[in-house]
């Protein structure tokens, strides 16, 4: 019984990977691009961007905190040409 449950779960995941996973990843990338643009225009001075930091960035900062490291790596990471979409 346990075997069949695990088999069904594995099959479900495989079909998910073959169909929806790519779409989910593309949506995440597009969402992230918009978020990254927002971070850049509000706290871009942290990365050396010539942004006239608005005062209300401190209001957003508490929401940005979990994403700041990921955003900095995203901006600074070298991209191969296949990733430059």
């Amino acid at each position, binding site marked *: 019984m346990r075997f069949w449950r695990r088999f069904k779960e594995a099959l479900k995941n*495989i079909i998910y*990977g*073959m169909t929806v996973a790519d779409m989910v990843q593309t949506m995440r990338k597009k969402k992230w691009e918009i978020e990254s643009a927002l971070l850049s225009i509000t706290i871009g001075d942290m990365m050396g961007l010539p942004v006239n930091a608005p005062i209300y960035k401190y209001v957003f900062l508490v929401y940005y905190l979990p994403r700041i490291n990921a955003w900095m*790596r995203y901006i600074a990471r070298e991209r191969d040409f296949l990733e430059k979409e």
Partner: protein
Amino acid sequence: MYFVLLGIIVYLAAYYIYARWFDRNIVRPDPKKPTPAHMYMDGIEFFPTNRYVLYGFQFKGIAGLGPILGPFVALAYGWLPALLWILLGNFFIGWIHDYSTIVLTVRNDGKTLGPLTYEYIGSRARNALIGFLLFYLILITAVFVFLCAVFFQSYPVSVLPVLFTVIAGIISGLLVYKFRVHIAVATVIGIIITAIGIVTGIFVPVSVDAIFGKDGAFIFWMFVVCLYCFIGAVTPLLWYTQPVVYLASFPCIFGIVLLILGALVSPLTGVELGQPAAKVEYWFSPHDLPLEAWVGPIWPILTVSIACGAISGWHSLVGTSGSGRQIDVETDMLPVGAGAMLTEGLLALSSLAAYMVLLPEEVVAVKWVSLVAGAKKLVAPILGGMEVAGAFIEAFFAMWLELYAITIQMLVTRFFRLAMAEATAPVPALKVTIGNKYVASALGLLIGAIFAWTGAWVDLWMLFGGSNQLLAGLALLLATLYYIRERGVGIYTLGPGIFMVVTCEAALIWEAFKLFYAVVIEKPIAKGLLATPEWKGVAMGLNAIFGIVGIILFILGLIVIVDWIRSYRKAKTAATKAE
């Protein structure tokens, strides 16, 4: 026919004996070591994913038209050599290539093939790789545009199903992104529209042969295919390409399952072999064929004709830029990399079975679309028989081939314009002209379409196969450097890498020779309009261009190999000193 069963046994042995041994003793994955998915977790490119999801993702990314159409070309030597190459090639080379490229990415901070080449070999090799990729993408375009046009022309029943699938994809995308409909509902609506398209296609086949003539119709269908792909390359992913590829994945998966099942149960359904096992007379000489009509000697041509069924460089691009960054724990690398590749081998075996059931006169009659006829013979017994399901199977598999080709070609055209933007980046004037996304996409499709127009599909397929397998060979050599640095032993990838590199360079030289020979004897390899005396000069010019492309690929590959040899010597010396 027990080939698929034999394949399952051989591939299980490859996975549970050889692959697991290699994994435990050479790679030595550490489940506690953080992978790039954890180190750089951003929820976008780097995020840990369940191994089964990743297996499906990897399989979908690597399974293209190569394993499906390649065995047809290899039939020139008989089915036995093709079978042996698909089994043994995958056993010794294919899975280790896919697995090692994922290992390279996971253990090098999620870097893709370009940066890995730069790090392990050097900048010249990386630049050569970009140039190599540009030509490789043009060859894929040429081959796929030709095939799509031929499929549309040969199977008018496939035109409306493909159109309906594309429309269904756009509608599903709009429903999900614009109207926030649940993905399951949008998918069901899309599949219903696709099914309506298949039924409509059976009753309303679309043929333009009567309007444009045979040659004009071929050019018309090429234009239609290029239009599908151009729109896919320049529009935002979410509105066209992504939802169409998503929706097309359902009939594609269904077709793969049907084909594998049909081949697996063929001993029970009584489907018989129609092809000879070995046409030895063609292995080393053209026999009764003129030289320009002969595919070539069994070595090196057999290995490059079955483009993806046993090994493919495309997989290293997919593995390094996608799956490698989502590996949750290092122990997942083997089932994802090796597992997906061995499954693709099963697909290649099933496609081979579909060709093998055709009688020689049936293959000659339908040529490159033989798979549809073969799939009908294999699958009809499990769907109620030829009378009940024959028309549906024909329309379905013709659509299946088209969707495979068009969805991959959309992505290839996107890659091409990215590669063009990268290549023209140092020169601003070029970057704003041919580096522009619309111009680059149109240019890639136009060059591919002109190549396809010649009808020299077999030779273009060999150039594509040669460049594809050469990329795989180069990836294996790259992996060798990693294994030497980390483990002091690289023979398991060095042997296959040298074999692939030598074979593919030989294949490229052979194809270039064949094309130049055709020009010298003034019998250009061409079909249709270009085969007429009035267009002979153009045909010869295009043959010469193909030959030059073959030489350029050979040289670019040689540059990477020479630089690799230097890096190999350094790595070997360092490994010896460390001991």
